[in-house]
């Protein structure tokens, strides 16, 4: 997909005026956020497990070359094939070749963010092969020709009414008088339609949450079971994944799985965690004849050597966006590419270039909630700052913004002037701001159009500190 990350600002202001979007996003707090808090409270070792999960990935990344080799060897020993892909283009070509060799007409797909990253659907379609997304959320956005707006809940931006309208438009063979008001009815309809697709598909493509070097295994985590039907029915199973997903052993996978679902949906464990090793064995009545793993690099090996290395620990749980005030206000599409929220703001410039996505790291209030909830303890705000610094050095920052920063820097380096200024301005603002808040303010319209600006209350911190010292 063509990124629109450059247009973050206008994307975001459009999103802020989108009423259905606002209503759809309002569920995050009582859903994901509350559920994660409960799951965390129910497991006393949760914080320690986060440390262990981070240590597992740090160890794996520090020995990534060797674990990838060990993993590949096991895949081959168990009858599978590994296809190394340096770029998105290479990965697409590898997948198309496997599909062509299998004579594939339709391909079912489990949810895969790497699949989104390489835009595999459009590519297959152009080559005359029909990809069918089977995760309900992915199916919904495929009907709408939209990218996902969340990494674990791709259709979180949609309301029930929108889904109903889309189903009526797409499923024209069904009686138009049918009722589709309840989510149960919508899910039942999608289930029936996709069941046919599962049974007819020639190739199934899934992603992988983890790869296990010890056994040559790929792991998927789902609640619907769609990934499983995708991979146990067709004759060929392709896993599209990336190099940083490998962990050493089953025990290491356990540690990551213990924090993954709890951080993502707040479940203790997802309904289905599936470990897949090679194609079907002799005597197996089901499972694919061929098992292929397409292993994508796409900039990750380079990230490993730089300041964004920590980002490679990401297990795509979505907690950072669920807890992000910016994401909660504008949703995922404003970020303009496949990875939204704080993790997207850090990852996207690494993957598609700072020219395309250099604005994204500005989509942050630096409140730090993302880092506080990230199960892998990735310092997301720090890395967003790295990007900002780079953007500044590259001269990509708007002039007015720079002027403001220069003025601030001038004052900030001269404490006497700074304190005098804040001492004058703060009480002034405090008097002007009725009820302690501004609902509009010159030069700050971008802020106050969608939320109030709190007015400073009382004296400045420095003044109060001096008074306290004086006591």
């Amino acid at each position, binding site marked *: 997909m063509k990124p629109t990350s450059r247009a973050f600002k206008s994307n975001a202001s459009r999103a802020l005026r989108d009423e259905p979007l606002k209503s759809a996003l309002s569920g995050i707090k009582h859903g994901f956020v509350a559920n994660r808090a409960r799951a965390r409270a129910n497991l006393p070792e949760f914080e320690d497990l986060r440390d262990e999960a981070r240590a597992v990935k740090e160890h794996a990344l520090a020995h990534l070359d060797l674990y990838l080799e060990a993993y590949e060897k096991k895949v081959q020993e168990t009858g599978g094939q590994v296809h190394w892909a340096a770029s998105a283009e290479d990965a697409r070509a590898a997948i198309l070749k496997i599909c062509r060799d299998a004579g594939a007409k339709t391909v079912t797909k489990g949810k895969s963010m790497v699949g989104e990253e390489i835009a595999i659907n459009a590519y297959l379609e152009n080559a005359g092969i029909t990809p069918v997304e089977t995760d309900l959320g992915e199916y919904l956005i495929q009907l709408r020709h939209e990218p996902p707006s969340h990494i674990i*809940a791709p259709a979180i931006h949609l309301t029930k009414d929108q889904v109903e309208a889309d189903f009526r438009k797409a499923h024209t063979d069904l009686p138009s008088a049918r009722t589709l008001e309840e989510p149960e009815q919508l899910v039942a309809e999608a289930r029936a339609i996709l069941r046919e697709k599962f049974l007819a598909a020639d190739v199934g493509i899934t992603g992988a949450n983890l790869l296990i070097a010890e056994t040559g295994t790929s792991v998927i985590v789902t609640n619907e079971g769609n990934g499983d039907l995708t991979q146990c029915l067709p004759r060929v199973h392709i896993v599209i994944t990336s190099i940083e997903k490998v962990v050493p052993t089953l025990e290491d996978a356990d540690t990551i799985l213990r924090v993954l679902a709890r951080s993502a949906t707040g479940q203790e464990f997802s309904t289905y965690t599936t470990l897949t090793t090679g194609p079907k064995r002799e005597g197996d009545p089901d499972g694919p004849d061929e098992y292929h793993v397409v292993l994508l690099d796409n900039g990750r090996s380079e990230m490993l050597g730089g300041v964004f290395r920590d980002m490679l620990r990401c297990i795509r749980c979505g907690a950072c966006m669920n807890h992000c005030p910016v994401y909660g206000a504008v949703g995922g599409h404003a970020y303009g590419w496949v990875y939204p929220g704080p993790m997207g703001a850090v990852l996207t410039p690494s993957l598609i270039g700072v020219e395309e996505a250099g604005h994204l790291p500005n989509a942050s209030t630096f409140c730090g909630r993302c880092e506080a909830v990230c199960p892998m303890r990735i310092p997301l705000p720090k890395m967003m700052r790295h990007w900002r610094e780079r953007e500044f050095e590259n001269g990509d920052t708007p002039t007015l913004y720079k002027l403001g920063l220069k003025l601030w820097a001038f004052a900030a380096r001269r404490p006497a002037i700074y304190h005098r200024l804040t001492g004058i301005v703060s009480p002034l603002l405090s008097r002007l701001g009725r009820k302690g808040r501004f609902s509009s303010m010159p030069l700050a319209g971008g802020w106050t159009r969608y939320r109030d600006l709190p007015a400073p209350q009382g004296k400045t911190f420095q003044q109060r500190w001096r008074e306290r010292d004086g006591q």
Partner: protein
Amino acid sequence: MSRSNARKNILNAVRHSLGVTDTDTVREKTVAKRLKAHKPNLVPEIAKVSGKKAVALISEKLEGQGATVSHVDKPDQIPERIAEYLRENNLPAEFRTGDDSMLSQIPWSKASSLTRHTGRGQGDDAVTISRADTAAAETGTLFLTSGADNPTTLNFLPDTHIVVIRAKDIRGSYEDAWNILRKAYKKQGLPRTVNLVSGPSRTADIEQIIVMGAHGPRRLHVIIVG
């Protein structure tokens, strides 16, 4: 770019970023040791249960996740229990299983109303029965392995999935459960598929409202034997 080149280039790029060479025997030894040791990381207290406590915990967890659980003392009570369950839920007295030795030895004729089919799952199966090799009580998680005994398609195609597990096969943690599988599959390595199942299929993709039976079974019933 040819495939072998891509492999070499990626591995070289990784080594370059890490500042290492491919002749570093210390790193190789570290990795070989870790892959062999299967050393558990932190295992939460809740997972350190066995016997009756593990059975109680797994029942509680599974029920909390939308499954139902029942207990029988001996395998030959299974047919009666299943007939009862199917009646209670207005389901047809018909099901499919694989060649699992335990399920095959059950005296199905004891519940004469039941019809048993065998083989892999079909798109219109109403009820299937599988046996779990082991389970981890910590999150109510059943471990099912692929093969002719318990074909994977039986786990996902039916509307109602019944899983039978012996109480003595239930463990506290995932780590303990892996060790059972490692022992059982020592020679050939893991089977093609290991399904960790913790409840019936569900989705929350429409307005975060949970709906059961997204693509897999709407109902999961677990029968613990012993």
